[in-house]
């Protein structure tokens, strides 16, 4: 693929409808265009698989991945992370294990024999991290509890709230937003454990881009301080990350007795 494309294709993930996302990220687009001297095209897609494949085949230049998706994609393609959202000075975030208040679950150990809801199989914070938290207490899916994949973070919270699953795991920031919005009632759902910090969603780029361009992109992201640009990311800025930072995610694979190179 072209190492120095005249238009940079940048992919975003939706947490709102597409038109809104593009509108909200207009500032980012303008900022990057000015900084890099190139045209920037924003793309909104709902599916990691198509993002990974597009990147591998040079149809995308920059993309914003989940940590586990990144690790998976990295095995098969030539991409590198360079920046992650910085919140409260950190480029990490946490996942939570939640339980229905009437299920009688108060600590992780109580989950034994219960139904547990996860989001997507390839999700970090709604699958891999909570599952590892359970594994640390010697609870394994299929053996000690029943797992259900419900597709998304919000669906996890909803299934726990209406009692179809007694417990579930999802990203802490998303859980907090759901509570704030009033979709999840604190009297029905409670947090029973919070994970240790994991590296945030990385911004990644194709490794076969021109090295000068790569450097320019890297600095452009790290130097963002315009609140208008940062607002859609709910971030104070972007911090540098490297591939090594994601080894913790890779390690989870071994903890769960999953070979991540085969995963």
């Amino acid at each position, binding site marked *: 693929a072209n190492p120095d494309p005249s238009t940079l294709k940048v992919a975003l993930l939706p947490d709102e409808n597409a038109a809104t996302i593009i509108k909200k990220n207009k500032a980012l687009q303008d900022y990057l265009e000015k900084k890099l001297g190139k045209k920037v095209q924003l793309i909104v897609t709902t599916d990691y698989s198509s993002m990974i494949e597009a990147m591998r*085949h040079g149809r995308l230049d920059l993309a914003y991945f989940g940590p586990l998706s990144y690790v*998976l994609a990295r095995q098969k393609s030539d991409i590198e992370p360079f920046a992650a959202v910085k919140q409260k000075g950190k480029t990490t975030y946490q996942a939570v294990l939640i339980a229905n208040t009437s299920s009688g679950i108060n600590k992780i150990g109580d989950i034994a024999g219960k139904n547990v809801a996860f989001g*997507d199989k390839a999700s970090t914070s709604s699958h891999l991290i909570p599952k590892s938290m359970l594994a640390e207490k010697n609870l394994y899916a299929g053996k000690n509890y029943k797992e259900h*994949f*419900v597709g998304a973070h919000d*669906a996890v919270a*909803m*299934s726990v709230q209406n009692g179809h699953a007694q417990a579930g795991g999802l990203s802490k920031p998303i859980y907090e937003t759901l509570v704030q919005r009033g979709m999840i009632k604190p009297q029905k759902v409670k947090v029973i454990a919070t994970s240790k910090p994991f590296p945030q969603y990385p911004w990644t780029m194709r490794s076969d881009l021109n090295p000068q361009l790569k450097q320019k992109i890297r600095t452009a992201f790290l130097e963002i301080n315009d609140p208008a640009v940062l607002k859609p990311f709910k971030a104070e800025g972007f911090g540098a990350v490297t591939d090594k930072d994601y080894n913790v995610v890779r390690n989870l694979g071994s903890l769960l007795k999953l070979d991540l190179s085969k995963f």
Partner: protein
Amino acid sequence: MSLSAEFSPFLRARRLAWNKALVTIVILAVVVAGCCYYAGLFDVERLTEGFPSLVSLIGEMFPPDFEQWKSWVKPLVDTLAMSVGGTAIAVIVSIPLAVLAARNTSPHPLVFYVFRGLLNGLRSIPELIMGIVFVAAVGFGALPGVLALAFHSIGMVAKFFAESIEHVDPAPVEAARASGCSSLQVIVHGIFPQVFSQMADTAIYRWEYNFRASTVMGMVGAGGIGFELIGSLRIMQYQEVSAILIVILAMVTLVDAFSSYLRKKTQ
């Protein structure tokens, strides 16, 4: 010449009809071409450029990797049960609905419009939403899957049944009416024997569709082979993906052959 004069009104009428058809065709062609252009289908360069990627991606799917086959047995059985159950319910509900929604059997034009509208409405609710709604209502497992498949299928199955009924040969129907059959008897003995094989075609197609629709069901927590498929896709095991696709194809072909055998036997 007087002969020509006698024929000319007919020729003129035919020319007119042909011109009208031509205008319609041209308008259609322009609309379609416009849409294709809008979608970038005339961008030959992009299309040809894409070809190597297509080949390499498909190449990655070979050879199919059947190593995990043992873990697919239960999901396959689940999917089979869900798709058969969902389709059966849809077919049973669709038969009376189709009669009410077919122009030639509906008791009143108003009834016809109401039921056509109902079917249109059912079809416009995506399976995903059906799935989410039913998972919310009855919890995880095969049950919400069956319900979602059934409800979503009705919209299509009943529409197709109704269309078959509308295309029926009116002659034997008339004979049934003329021999004093009640409306229900006319439908059952004059129309159904004529549309039976088309209805079976539709039902089998829909079963097949529902078997494959388990992808969606997998996404909302109803399990099945589709969930395995998405799982393998998510973790980029493309050789496994192709293996599962082959399994699905084999299952569908098998049941297809079985049902066409069944139809031949009973007819």
